């Protein structure tokens, strides 16, 4: 049984849950998804992997830093202390990983620009090329951030733009794989728990 912590600061949850369930069925793995709103829920359950969904990073920093939650910065320390555990951050989740604002090194070393494409009418779908998956992937970009540069491995690109960065087992994507019918990145997360 693989346990996956779903960080519930704010943002799309239902689609990450259904994506994880579908990926686990594809792989024939049993998983348990744990909803995490507080640091105590993360440390007491100590999941095998975590997903940080997107939403609004300003809201997520607020709900995460509240003293009832303390997930921020505690979640970042947990990731640093558990380098073997895979992490998937999407959209605003990627912003938190690249810019944790806790005085410590970022979880992925990359410059990220928030809401870089403009308002909702500039949100778009476009094909992404992923070196991690070794193939193309349908990219869904919603008021997305943009990586300006990366010190880490680039694991997804769109044209010449960096849209995915990988640092060890931490992956930050500026798009929303959970909204796509392709579960490649969620499969990667579960497969990474199992070794490689």
């Amino acid at each position, binding site marked *: 049984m693989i346990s996956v912590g779903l960080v519930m600061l704010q943002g799309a949850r239902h689609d990450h849950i259904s994506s994880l369930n579908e990926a686990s069925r594809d792989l024939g793995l049993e998983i348990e998804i744990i909803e995490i*709103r507080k640091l105590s829920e993360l440390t007491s359950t100590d999941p095998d992997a975590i997903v940080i969904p*997107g939403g609004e990073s300003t809201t997520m920093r*607020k709900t995460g830093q509240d003293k009832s939650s303390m997930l921020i910065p505690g979640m970042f320390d947990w990731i640093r202390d558990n380098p073997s555990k895979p992490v998937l951050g999407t959209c605003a989740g990627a912003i938190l990983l690249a810019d944790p604002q806790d005085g410590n090194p970022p979880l992925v070393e990359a410059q990220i620009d928030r809401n870089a494409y403009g*308002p909702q009418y500039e949100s778009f779908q476009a094909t992404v090329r992923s070196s991690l998956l070794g193939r193309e992937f349908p990219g869904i970009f919603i008021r997305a951030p943009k990586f300006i540069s990366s010190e880490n491995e680039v694991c997804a690109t769109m*044209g010449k733009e960096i849209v995915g960065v990988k640092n060890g087992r931490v992956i930050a994507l500026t798009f929303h794989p959970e909204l796509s019918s392709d579960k490649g990145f969620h499969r990667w997360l579960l497969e990474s728990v199992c070794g490689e």
Partner: protein
Amino acid sequence: MSGTLDLTKMRYGTELLKRGFAKMQEGGVVMDVVTPEEAHIAEDAGAVSVMALERVPADIRAMGGVARMSHPTMIKEIMETTSIPVMAKARIGHEGEARVLESLGVDMIDESEVLTPADPFFHIPKKDFTIPFVCGCTNLGEAIRRISEGAAMIRTKGEAGTGNVVSAVQHASLVAGEIKHIQSADEQERDDMVDIIMQGYRRMNDASEFNLTLENLPDGDTPFGTMGEVKEDVESVLDEVARIGRLPVVTFSAGGIATPADAALMMNRGMDGIFVGSGIFKSSDPSLTAEAIVLATHHFNDPDVVAEACSLVGEAMPGLEIETLDVRLEERGW
């Protein structure tokens, strides 16, 4: 955008992107604001979006008169002030206002009963727009009509500007109960439900002094296409609801939510998030009230934290009994 991208392969304004935007609001609080200063307070308090409008519902209720879309200058100022998404309200059926809002670049349009309706027969054909819409509902049929017209997000209507949560609870309970009903319905019952939902598109028939029957007009008889096409869309949404056991779009609660406990109540009833109108900027300390409602929405399932959120706030906005109202906003739209 970078010139190296193949722009011909990029797609904008798809159903997936519209519904996806709404999904990014999950677990959040959308706050009504009437000035850039209020937008700033809302963002600092953790709002997931702001709703730009001319007057909060409590003031619309008190002042009376025709309530319209906000002034473009004000909406632009709010958009310049805040980094979170900006939504704005258009009148029911007022495609003209909706096009102005789209041109201003707001992130989502609320086709709202809080404003004075512009079209007594039809809502806005929302599929024709690049940006997504949120619409109110009082029951499942109304929600299905709006989704089949292209709404990417649904909210309960509640009774705005009252600080009274009873109507929001009523609407949420009806939608939930009616979804269970449709899941257990046989084919005949399901067809009857479709017919009842379609009645909402025959208001012009009812108003005409001749025997006007939309079904008999050649084409383009509704803003959404022919009545046959509308029926197909309604059936497809209804069947999806029956299959998945919930609305196929993000569903928020709105209308009368005034305290952190109100927000927690609605989240515990299965809502995906909260709209707060007059409840914040009509309270004694808007900044604290806003923070407390965000906290209670986030930790809705932990009564200790909701209690802490309730202790943070001072006096809530004054409330109104539904029975004493001159105008029931929930009755606008159908």
